[in-house]
């Protein structure tokens, strides 16, 4: 049979993610080097601090584009369901931890860790949602 399943959305997603990872690694190296050696202050310090975050935001935008470009409605449903459950899990854990910090003197959770936590939950929920449809 000549026809093939369109996997172009996944292909584009992987390429964009790879490019963003490279940009993130380079920008982070550059920003940390600048902070260690030149100790920037004021507006420049703020601007430099924002740069690595932009790459992380780009990763989220890339994931959004992947969902928008997915043609297979079943796969899109699996991705969207996983995404919703991982948002619920991340918000629950971070809210819970917030109260633990506030009332029980638990160690401070860096807001920077929220995205990796979300990524871990996304991996878990994707596996669980996929299992549901097996």
């Amino acid at each position, binding site marked *: *049979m000549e*026809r*093939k*399943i*369109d996997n172009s959305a996944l292909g584009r997603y992987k390429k964009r993610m790879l490019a963003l990872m490279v940009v993130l690694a380079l920008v982070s190296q550059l920003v940390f080097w600048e902070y260690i050696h030149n100790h920037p202050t004021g507006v420049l310090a703020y601007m430099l601090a924002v740069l690595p975050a932009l790459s992380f935001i780009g990763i989220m935008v890339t994931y959004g584009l992947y969902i928008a470009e997915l*043609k*297979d*409605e*079943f*796969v899109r*449903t699996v991705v969207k369901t996983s995404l919703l459950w991982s948002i619920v899990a991340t918000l629950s854990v971070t809210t819970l931890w917030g109260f633990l910090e506030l009332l029980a003197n638990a160690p401070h959770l860096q807001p920077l860790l929220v995205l990796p936590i979300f990524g871990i939950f996304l991996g878990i929920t994707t596996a669980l949602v996929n299992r*549901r*449809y097996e």
Partner: protein
Amino acid sequence: MKNRLRVLRAEREWSQADLALRLEVSRQSVNAIETGKFDPSLPLAFKLARLFETTIEAIFTDEN
């Protein structure tokens, strides 16, 4: 929703992968629809009906 996809597919001696290729979806999609775990959208249901040269009602039946 219950459906007759497995029967219709067997009549044509198509595997799930064959049907997936014809519908331009993943094999997992066909499996999920066939087992009733996932209800297809109206456009995909029409595509299925056209492919099997029948009506949507002849493929899918409301469990209620």
